[in-house]
């Protein structure tokens, strides 16, 4: 398969993204990203993009069907608002990775900083390391798997996303509770770990989700309003 290479040391990001939005081939390689913003944002076909180096804000944002791999770290907003496809990063991701993403799979082999999966709406996020505080804040749908630890405020104001954490969890966020890990959860966890290329035993994880106390109006509290 032919691979077209873009060197961002000599080519602007706009030229790269214009090509990725109207691709001539199926496979691309990006060299010297050096922290540039919006690298490979807005892909809407099933192309593969290998990015060799650290990227800046909003890498692979809005991805819809592409398969993007970052061989390095990413700044704020990795794969934000992804619709479908796969984004994989070999290093660490900064804040708000996978924010508002509707679908697809985001694999962070290292750790993610604060607010990972904030307002996630259906994406699957698998983190090999740990996630920072306030992760899965207002998470509406999708699954998040954390093989390390989760910081304080996990799942604050969560709706129907399912969270799995293997390590320690700080103070849980408002309306987030630990839930029973049943067979169907172990099965979906095994699938997600396999998709990410990880081989942890699903039984080592604990499940967290919504207590559903916040988003139903309690009639007995009507007088408070």
């Amino acid at each position: 398969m032919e691979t077209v290479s873009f060197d961002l040391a000599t080519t602007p990001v706009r030229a790269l993204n214009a090509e990725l939005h109207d691709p001539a081939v199926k496979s691309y390689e990006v060299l010297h990203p050096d922290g540039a913003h919006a690298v490979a944002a807005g892909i809407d076909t099933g192309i593969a993009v290998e990015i060799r180096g650290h990227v800046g804000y909003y890498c692979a944002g809005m991805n819809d069907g592409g398969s993007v791999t970052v061989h390095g770290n990413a700044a704020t907003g990795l794969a934000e608002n992804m619709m479908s496809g796969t984004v994989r990063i070999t290093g660490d991701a900064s804040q708000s990775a996978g924010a508002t993403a509707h679908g697809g799979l985001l694999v962070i082999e290292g750790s993610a900083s604060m607010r990972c999966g904030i307002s996630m709406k259906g994406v699957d996020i698998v983190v090999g390391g740990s996630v920072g505080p306030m992760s899965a804040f207002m998470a509406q749908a999708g699954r998040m798997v954390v093989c390390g630890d989760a910081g304080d405020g996990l799942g604050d104001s969560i709706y129907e996303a399912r969270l799995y954490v293997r390590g320690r969890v700080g103070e849980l966020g408002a309306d987030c509770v630990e839930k029973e890990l049943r067979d169907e959860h172990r099965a979906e966890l095994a699938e997600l770990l396999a998709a990410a290329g990880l081989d942890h035993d699903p039984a080592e994880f604990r499940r967290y989700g919504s207590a559903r106390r916040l988003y139903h109006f309690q009639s007995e509290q009507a007088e408070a309003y």
Partner: protein
Amino acid sequence: MCGIVGLHLRDPELHPQLGRLLESMLCGVVERGPDSAGVAVYGDRRRVPEGHAAVSVLLPPGADTNGLDAEVSVAGDTTIVAAPVVPEDLVARVKGLFPTARVVGSGHDLTVYKGVGHPRELATTYGLADAVGWQGLAHTRMATESAVTPEGCHPFSVGPDQCLVHNGSFSNHASIRRELVRQGVEFDSENDSEVGARFVASRLAQGEDLEKALLALRETFDGFYTLLVTSADGFAVVRDPIACKPAVIAETDAWVAMASEFRALAALPDIDHARLYEPEPGRVYAWRR
């Protein structure tokens, strides 16, 4: 939004390259603050000869510096004055001759440059690429709270060989300012970041080190901040407890660097082998020379 960069060199062999490296870092955060830029350099013997004190000052237009009896170099809006005396005496001499001038830095090692315009052009105006030294920092400003003037540029340097650069805004600075004023601290401006710098300076003057001073700042100040604070022998970073403003740190055996974004670090020597991490919310990171 503002941009911060800082570089603390552990390897003396890199000292001649400080300015060139700092310029590349500054250019990496231009888009975060294209209004104005300030720079601080520690140990630039081109402008502060050994055994001299230096005062960095924004002089009124047409000021005649002949009466200063000192070595004078001009870099855009900033004038650097150096003389073989203690910093306090040189500050008094400058203020005596130019009562309305704004002193923006003083010390045995520190030179501070401030100006309005595109940061890349300002770097040329400051002669930054040729600067030498052991530590430096820079700030690009997108002003939100006060006018775009050289006086409003960071760094805020209010104690000998001290600097503070700030990305964010403090929300309780007015009450902290009142308390500091009660203690006898004088202010140059209404700027919230100056309150942070005065607070740190008052703590250092009481004998605390940078780490202790920033722990106290974290307990006292409310708001959004990533701060880089430097002193005669230190380099320290702290972010607010919910980490609203970005920061990344890189370390090798030869240097420690911090920046708002990785792209400002991308050109540093051996960056591919640096330990890269984001400073955790509310934690103080400090290094000593």
